[in-house]
């Protein structure tokens, strides 16, 4: 069973890895975007960490909802509402139980990813964060590490894709050959989850 602290540590670990990788995320957002994905997420997860350090809700669901609301209020851009919705929806699914099973969490995250797909209207292969999130969540049944690896693979698989959603879609054919920044940050998010689950962080 996972308690609120597990989810707090996931968010803190994500803030750390986003901070470390912010420049790379922004670099990826340069050729096919507007060069802000790294600073967007850094602003957001720094705020999440601060919010959770100030007061951590007692329930896993409340932690993720609080994190999601904070992202929505601080990030802006496309990724703010999308990641915000991912965490809020996942948190809502978790309800107010003080501890949740891995299986409950898997179902909740799946619902969260579904909410992202509905909000953004993207499908797999559109070269978005979904291309990392969907395979990632699908592999969660195996292990957290497997999920992280699958998300990483999904992010790499966006390179040959032509973007159909978000800013990269303006480039048409010219979007091919670049890795999607949002898919990359989604892999970081699931990577942080695996690290926390594996007791590495």
């Amino acid at each position: 069973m996972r308690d609120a602290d597990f989810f707090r540590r996931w968010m803190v670990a994500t803030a750390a890895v986003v901070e470390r990788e912010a420049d790379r995320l922004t670099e990826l957002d340069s050729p096919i975007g507007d060069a802000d994905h790294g600073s967007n997420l850094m602003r957001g997860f720094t705020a999440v960490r601060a919010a959770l350090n100030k007061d951590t809700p007692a329930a896993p669901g409340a932690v993720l909802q609080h994190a999601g609301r904070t992202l929505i209020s601080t990030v802006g851009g496309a990724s703010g509402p999308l990641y915000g919705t991912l965490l809020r929806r996942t948190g809502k699914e978790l309800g107010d139980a003080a501890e949740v099973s891995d299986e409950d969490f898997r179902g909740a995250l799946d619902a969260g990813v579904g909410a992202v797909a509905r909000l953004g209207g993207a499908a797999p292969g559109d070269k978005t964060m979904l291309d990392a999130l969907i395979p990632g969540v699908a592999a969660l049944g195996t292990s957290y590490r497997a999920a992280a690896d699958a998300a990483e693979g999904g992010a790499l698989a966006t390179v040959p894709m032509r973007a159909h959603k978000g800013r990269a879609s303006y480039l048409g054919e010219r979007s091919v050959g670049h890795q999607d920044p949002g898919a990359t940050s989604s892999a970081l998010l699931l990577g942080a989850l695996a690290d926390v689950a594996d007791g590495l962080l």
Partner: protein
Amino acid sequence: MRMLINSAETVVADALRGMAAAHPELDVDVERRVIARRDAREGGRVGLVSGGGSGHEPLHGGFVGYGMLSAACPGEVFTSPVPDQMVRAAKVVDAGQGVLFVVKNYTGDVLNFDMAAELAEEDGIRVERMLVDDDVAVTDSLYTAGRRGTGATLFVEKIAGAAAEAGAPLDQVAAVARRVNGASRSFGVALSACTTPAKGSPTFDLPDGELELGVGIHGEPGRERRAMMSAREIAEFAVGAVLEDLAEVAPADGPVLALVNGMGATPLLELYGFHAEVTAVLAARGVPVARTLVGNYVTSLDMAGCSVTLCRADDEMLRLWDAPVQTPALRWGR
């Protein structure tokens, strides 16, 4: 990095402090990032709220005032603002007649404004939303996020603002805003990439002697790169692209409102020279120009380049265009 800043993190807050100091007639909330008319709630008008990433100044904050926007929400550089800002703006300007959100069609702007509209309506504010999507460089298909909103935003904000100032109800203000957008098309060209404070280097590589056709206003690369063209050739290309698309707007032979817009670093001297060519192309194609605006209005930080926006304006639009306006960046009749 050749920037006149304190730090990348404080750019937007610093600019808001400067706006507050320079424009005491505006209510600039630096903390909450809302620039509003002090008299927004007087007179029982419809509120007109816009916003978007910073770096496009004077858009949108420079268009707040009598006869134009009631409030603007500046996001981080090239990043849409967050819903909290728009909700706050709606509250500050709503006089009970409802609020129109003018939203440029970018995924981030759309999502954040949508969330804000929901929240504001939960708070009892009537909200309409309209999308600006005038950029013909982007194909509006199932395979893109749709056309971007660029120069037409100025037309929409000025004309809808005049309608609101005149006391039109929310549905009419929204309707004229949508009509203006539907009658407007834009095309942009970059002669150099811009540098965001956060990245500190150009957002794309543009070798000397080349240009990007169909560039966006966020440092997104364009759809095509070509060898450098003359002002005349660029005007031919840009006006051609706009007119081709505008042909679907009736009446196909009406007069146009023209915005010849600088991206930021192109000197006004060059922009006027470019405007001469735009005028020549329009004349050669028999398009009458009713009104013209030449200058840096919808910019992209320090990008060199230009865009052309044409709106097939009907008599009502022209009348509203000519109505008095008093904002930091656009002012006449008062």
